[in-house]
């Protein structure tokens, strides 16, 4: 079976400091990979390298493109990479305002990716947008409201709708539940889990919240100081942590 994403020895340095280094893994279709670690451990750097938003200093990120099979997205030319960015890839930012156009209505936000790949029928675009708002539990009468009038949780769900509307195969998520209160988090996670299963999405989720990966991720990668210190199945890593840092991380979770 061909992996959807094949990461080989990715390294990114900020001057003498290590962003992340020596990261390799394969991601298969339908698989959800979690990346956990403390602040500054390099998980966001890694995610940005994978999603083509940062250029890694070494290594290869091969993506299984529809037309030509595995292609290295690092050496791919920019138009192709940006094309992937609005068709087969999706990127969910931690802060919804980074991923949304705040001065454009909810419907326009969802429709943008459709129009970017050539949709030119207003009625169809609007129907698709309304359908997607419904799927992320935003009522259809909010379709013409701007995201500024939405709550944090709704903005995050809108961002997810906007990203998934073109049926991507790989979703990058950077702390998708960051800054939301627990009950809103729970609903969002429930929604994400449903969508991932339903659309058979592959996803890479960066978070520092172990509960999120427990719920969503099949596999887990633990990072510290730019290195991957432990990988394995999520339950295995969380229930039987081997590396000292992972043990610390797991034991640091507050129990209610």
């Amino acid at each position, binding site marked *: 079976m061909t992996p959807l994403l094949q990461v080989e020895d990715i390294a990114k340095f900020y001057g003498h400091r290590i962003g992340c280094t020596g990261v390799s893994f394969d991601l298969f279709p339908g698989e959800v990979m979690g990346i956990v670690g403390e602040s500054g451990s390099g998980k966001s750097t890694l995610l940005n390298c994978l999603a083509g938003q940062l250029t890694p200093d070494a290594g290869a990120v091969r993506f299984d493109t529809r037309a030509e099979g595995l292609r290295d997205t690092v050496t791919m030319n920019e138009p192709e990479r940006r094309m992937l960015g609005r068709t087969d890839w999706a990127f969910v930012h931690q802060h919804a305002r980074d991923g949304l*156009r705040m001065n*454009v*209505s909810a419907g*326009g936000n969802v429709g*943008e990716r459709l*129009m*970017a790949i050539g949709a030119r*029928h*207003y009625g169809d675009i609007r129907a698709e947008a309304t359908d997607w708002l419904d799927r992320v539990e935003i009522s259809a009468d909010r379709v*013409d409201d701007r995201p500024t009038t939405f709550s944090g949780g709704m903005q995050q769900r809108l961002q997810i709708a906007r990203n998934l509307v073109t049926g991507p195969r790989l979703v990058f998520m950077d702390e998708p539940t960051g800054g939301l209160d627990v009950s809103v988090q729970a609903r969002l996670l429930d929604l994400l889990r449903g969508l991932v299963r339903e659309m058979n999405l592959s996803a890479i989720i960066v978070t520092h919240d172990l509960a999120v990966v427990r719920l969503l991720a099949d596999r887990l990668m633990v990072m510290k100081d730019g290195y991957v210190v432990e990988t394995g199945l999520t339950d295995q890593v969380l229930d039987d942590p081997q590396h000292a840092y992972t043990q610390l991380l797991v034991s640091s979770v507050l129990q209610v």
Partner: protein
Amino acid sequence: MSDYNFAYLDEQTKRMIRRAILKGLAIPGYQVPFASREMPMPYGWGTGGVQVSAAVLTPDDTFKVIDQGADDTTNAVSIRRFFEKTAQVKTTETTRDASVIQTRHRIPEGDLGEDQILVYQVPIPEPLRFLEPSEVETRKMHSLEEYGLMHVKLYEDISQHGAIATAYAYPVKVEGRYVMDPSPIPKFDNPKLEMAAIQLFGAGREQRIYAIPPYTQVVSLDFDDFPFEPTKADHACDLCGATDSYLDELIVDDAGGRMFMCSDTDYCSTRRKAGHVGAQGVPYSEDAA
């Protein structure tokens, strides 16, 4: 004897602007950066158009300036006088007689010919500006032909107003490649952008020049189910009776009285000279104010 170099600008500057114009003509719709000079008028009064006109004028040219279609507004009169003084070219108000026409916000009603040049004054040349504030990003979008965002604006129009409410500066795609802002002309004029004359666009403050060569394909952007429609006031000209021209609405008293008249003054007076009279018009006389 004038103390100015011909057409105000020095020869090196005019060469620099001509190079930008030629590049613009070679890549229709592409915004060519140029080293815009300070002109003896404020930005927003047509400094871009004046520089382009200065670069294309020759001593044999006949020059016409219109502002919103009119030959006799402050902006048009001062620019016309400027070139009368600095270039001593002949000036005219008759569209057909002019070889170079500088315009603000209108295209003349009558068809232009192959021997004419139309120079537009452009305030903001970047059609994507109000959607994407970053110049780096908009340039990248132009170079990679990523124009989905332009349709987001039209989508927003329909979702808010039920129709594409953009009435001026309506975005067009030139020769199937570059999306271009046709300057704030009413969308009524958009179909006329495919013409026999050379069209040059100058934006002084933003330091950009772009161009549409003669007979170039210019398509107004739209949706399949909301096609582009050129619109005008649903009325006939009250002075000359024309039903096919773009109209200005004029409030004439405090009791709600109003009249519509052609925004193109030359078109209107030519028709009145030929004997056409509108609903509130009086027959044309040479010495009428």
